[in-house]
C-alpha cells in the first residue's frame, strides 16, 4: 500500500507520496525573483527558511489560474531542501495499491508526460503521480516551462 497526498489543479486530481509532503500552508506573501524561469512564482518565508515556490499549473503546462481563485502551498521535500508548489486545493490522503499503478496515459503529451511517474486507477478517479525530482528541478533541468 502507498499513501498519496492528493491535490487538484484545473479539476485534475494529482498525487504525491505523503512522505515527501512536509506541510500544507495557506498562501504566503511571495517575493518575485526577477529573471527566473516563469514557473518560479517567488520566494516565501517558511519559519525563517527561504523556500522557492513553483506555480505548478505553469510548470505542468496547464491553463493559468483565474485571478483571485483559491490557492494553497503544498510544501514538498527535495534534494535541495523544501520547495512549495502552488496548487488549487489539497485533497485527502489516498491509500492506493501498487497493483493499480499504470504508466502515464498514452493521451498525455510532451512535458507533462515527462513530469509524471504514472497514475493509479481508482474507482471514479485517476490521480496522476508527479515525478517530484523532475518537477522541482527548474532552470537548466531541461524543462521548458
Amino acid at each position, binding site marked *: 500500500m502507498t499513501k498519496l497526498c492528493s491535490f487538484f489543479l484545473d479539476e485534475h486530481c494529482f498525487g504525491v507520496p505523503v512522505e515527501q509532503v512536509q506541510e500544507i500552508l495557506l498562501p504566503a506573501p511571495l517575493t518575485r*525573483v526577477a529573471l527566473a524561469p516563469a514557473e518560479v512564482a517567488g520566494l516565501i*518565508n517558511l519559519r525563517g527558511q527561504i523556500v522557492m515556490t513553483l506555480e505548478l499549473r505553469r510548470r505542468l503546462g496547464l491553463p493559468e489560474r483565474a485571478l483571485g481563485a483559491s490557492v494553497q502551498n503544498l510544501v514538498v521535500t527535495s534534494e535541495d531542501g523544501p*520547495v512549495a508548489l502552488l496548487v488549487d486545493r489539497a485533497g485527502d490522503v489516498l491509500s492506493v495499491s501498487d497493483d493499480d499503478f499504470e504508466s502515464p496515459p498514452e493521451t498525455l503529451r510532451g512535458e507533462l508526460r515527462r513530469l509524471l511517474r504514472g497514475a493509479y486507477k481508482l474507482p471514479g478517479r485517476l490521480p496522476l503521480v508527479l515525478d517530484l525530482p523532475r518537477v522541482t528541478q527548474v532552470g537548466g533541468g531541461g524543462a521548458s516551462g
Partner: protein
Amino acid sequence: MNAANDMDDALVEFLAESEENLDGFEEALLGLERAPDDTALLTAAFRYIHSIKGTAGFFSCGRLQALTHAGESVLSRMRDGELRMSQVIAGQLFAMSDGARQILAAVRATRDEGKRDFDDLIAQLARSFAPAAAEPDPMWPASAQPAPVAPAAASAPVPPAPEISDEPEEPTTVRVDVHLLDTLISLVGELVLTRNQLLQVSGRSSDPAFQSTTQRLNHITSDLQERIMKTRMQPIRNVWNRLPRVVRDLSAQCGKQVRVEMVGGDTELDKTIVEAIRDPLTHMVRNAIDHGIETAEARVASGKPAEGRLTLRASHENGRVIMDIADDGAGIDPEKIRRKALERGLLPAEQLQRMNAHELIQLIFLPGFSTADKVSSISGRGVGMDVVKHNIERIGGQVEVLGTIGAGTTLRMKVPLTLAIVSALVVQTGDERYAIPQANLLELVGVNDPGGPGGVEVFSEVPVYRLRGTLLPLAFLAKEMGRAATWQEALAELGDAMTILVLKSDGREFGLVVDGVCDSTEIVVKPLAKALKSLAVFAGATILGDGRVALILDVLNIARRAGVGSERRMMARVAPPVLVPDGEQQRLLLFDAGHGRQGAVSLAGVDRLESLDRGRVHEAGGQRMVRYRDAVMPLYELSPWMHDVGVAPAPGSDDASIHVLVCARAGGPVGLVVTRIVDVIEGSFKIHEGARRRGIAGAVVLGERVTDLVDLEQVLAHITEVRP
C-alpha cells in the same frame, strides 16, 4: 536501523576526531623537528597517535591500527631515549600521517580501508629503530651526532610520569552539526521578528505584567541572538594549522629553508569565511615559497640569514579581519612585471610606461599573469593570483600586494568577520525591495528632476550622471530586474526624484538608480535554492523586519549585466593616461588660477574630486594635510604652477570647503587644491605646445580664453620627490 544510525554517527565522529588528532600530531612533529628533545611535544605526538590507534581497533580498521602502531613504536623509543628525532624519521612519520589520512578518506568514502596496505611504510618505520639504523644522520654533522643514548635526554631526565592516559580530560566541548547551528540561527532570526511584533502589541497594552514579560523576552532574545552568532566563529588558526606542513613539504621540494611564524591565530571569523579563505591562503603561501623566498645560497649571498621567514599575521580592525602573508624574500621587481605584462600583451606599452611601482606590482592579479620564469609544478597549477583575488572579492574581501625589492613581499587580505550577517541597505524599485551589502556602497546621491538638466545624461550611448566632475555610468535597477524594458522607460517611471547608489565593485565605480532607500539594517544572508543560483545577479536572500523575503543583489554581476563595468574601464582606472594626447575625446576640469588666469586638468589622471571641509585641514611642519578615508593626505595648491616664481599665490576663497583633486599615488593619495572650479568640459582639444613649461603640458584655447593645461604627471612627480 537505529543501531546502524548510531554506528554511522560514531564512525563519522571517529573520522573527524582522527583527522583532528592527525593535525595535532603533525603540529607536534613540526615542533619536534626544531626541538628534538622537547619531551612535552614528544608526549603530545605520542598521545595523538595513540588515541587514533586505540579507536581504529574499535572500528576494526586493521590497517590504520597497524600503521599507527608502527609510528607509535618509533615515538615510544624516542620517549625511552633510545632514538632521537631526525629529519629522516620525521619524514617517515609524516608519511605515516599521510597514509593514515588516506585510509580515513577511503573509509569515509567507501566504508573500507582501501587497497594499499602500507607494509612498505610500516617496514621503514620499524627499520628506523632497528640496530642497523645507527648510521649517521644527514641532519646533524658527525661531531654533533647524538650518542645512542642521547645525552640531552640523560641530562634532562624523562619526567617521572609523562602521563599517557587514555582518558580524555573533562570534555568542555561537543561536536555539533553545522546544519543544526544554521537551523538554530534561522529560528532565532524568526524569534527576533516575532519578538518585534510582540513589542508593538505590548506597546498598545496597558497590562503591566504583560509589558514586563515582553521586556524580559526582549532581553533574552537579544542575548540569545548574540550568543548563537558566536557559535559559528572559529579561530583563524584552524586554517593556519595546515600551513606549516605545506611549507615544510614545499620548501624541501624547492631546496629552500623556510620557517613559519604566526601572530594572532586566535582572531576569530565566521566558519564560512574560514572555509572561503582556505584555498586562496594556501595558494598565496605556495607562491611565497616558490617565487618569494630565495634559496639558502642566494640569501646568504645577499646578506640575509639562510633560513627564510614566512609570517602569517591576523588582527581585527573595524569589524573586519586583516590578514598578512609576508615573506622576507626577494620581493617583486616592478620592472620584471612591466616586461612580462608587455610580453603577454596584457596592457598597452604606453600605459605600462606610465605606471608606478605600486601600480605595477598589482598587475600580478591580472588574469594570465605568472611571474615565475618557468612554470613550476608548485604554484604554476593554472590557478593564478586573479583567481585568488576573485575568490576573496567574492566574500566581500580585498587583497593587495605590498613589497620592496630585496626586502620581501606582503600580501594583505581584508575580509569581513562573517558572511551570515551583513549590514545592508534596503532599496526600493516599484513595490519591490532589494538588499545591497553596505561593503559595496560608496555614497548615496539624491537627484531631483532626473530627466532634466543636471540629471541623467547620455555619454557614448550609456546613461551617466555627472558626479563632482566625474561621469558615473548608471544602471537602472528597474531595468535590471525586468520591470522596465529600457533604461529610458525606467527613467520615465521614476517621476521627479531618484536615488543613485554609488557602488564599487572590482575596483570600478558605477551608479545604481533606485526609487528610494527604505532602510539601513543588518541582514541575515541565506542561500538561494540551487535552481536560482544560476541567476548570478543575486547573492542570496534575506528576511526583512516585516517577515517578507528580499533578494540580495550581487553588485559585481549587476554591473556586468548592465554593461557598466567593462574591462576597458578598469584598465583605464589602473593606468590613467595622464598626458593629454592631441585630438582625443577628453574631459577637462577648468579652475580659476587667480590673477585672471584659468587652468585646466585632464580628469583622466584624477581619481576623485572632493569637496572637503576647510576645518578638517591641519598644518604640520609647513605641510597642509587632511584625513581622507583611511589615510592622511597631503594637500598642495595647484595655482602656483600657473604663474612665474614670485607671483603671490591666488587669494584663497572664504568658502567653508575646499575643492581637492585626489590622485592615487604609491605612497597614498595626494590632494591638489584648486580655489574655484569653473566647469567640467568634454571634447577634443588642440594643445599648443608652445606654452609648454615646467608643470604645464601646453595651452588650450577654450572660447576665447587661453587656458594652461597642467601636466599632472610632472606636478605629481615633483611633489612626491620633494615630499619627505
